[in-house]
């Protein structure tokens, strides 16, 4: 079974998809398999990570297990009203 990456906001446009199935493993290894421009955009400071719906305090040392969902959350929009 694979793990899943979820791209929110503008990251979806960059990835060309909202979700992507990947082989489980260390995040570094997973990111190395992505287009370079996308991997760089995912690693900027302002992008937060959530593993299985829980916000992570930091992105270091993540290893994706089978069935895990890792979401990349760019800054939220605010505005309106």
């Amino acid at each position, binding site marked *: 079974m694979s793990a899943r990456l979820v791209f929110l*906001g503008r990251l979806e446009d960059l990835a060309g998809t909202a979700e992507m199935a990947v082989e489980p493993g260390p995040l570094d290894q997973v990111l190395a398999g992505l287009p370079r421009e996308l991997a760089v955009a995912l690693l900027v400071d302002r992008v937060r990570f*959530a593993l*299985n719906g829980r916000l992570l305090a930091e992105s270091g040392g993540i290893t994706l297990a089978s069935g895990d969902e890792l979401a990349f959350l760019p800054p*939220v*929009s*605010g*505005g309106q*009203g």
Partner: protein
Amino acid sequence: MIDVRLAEAPFDQAEELTRFTARVPEAGGVVSFLGKVRADSGVEALDIRHYAPMTLPGFRALAQTALRRWQLDGLLIVHRVGEMAPGAPIVLVAGAARHRRDAFAATDFVMDHLKGESWLWKRERTAAGWRWIEPRAQDHVDRARWG
């Protein structure tokens, strides 16, 4: 009483308020705020994206915070997701309380925090295509009012 929902389709704000008010018979007042898609020149549509595992839980946590902070009989949050036309309702927040100041303050508090802190991503469409909306400094200032 907390009623917090994401709406995938247009909602009827009058109907929502009628139903909410009926559920808080003890309240002395109900304050509501309706946010709409601004009819800015050139904007043809607004699209709001959410992340299901986090967006609604975040709304619920916010509602609980408001309930702890003010004396409320009830709090309603209905937030649209998906594509909307200019003038369409985006968000309805209502606070019901024995006394009006609690209801005013809680509604204002929830709106300030919904705008800058909820897991929602917005983009708007103009003749030039879709454009993602970036965070505004004002949203941070609005939240800082509450300490």
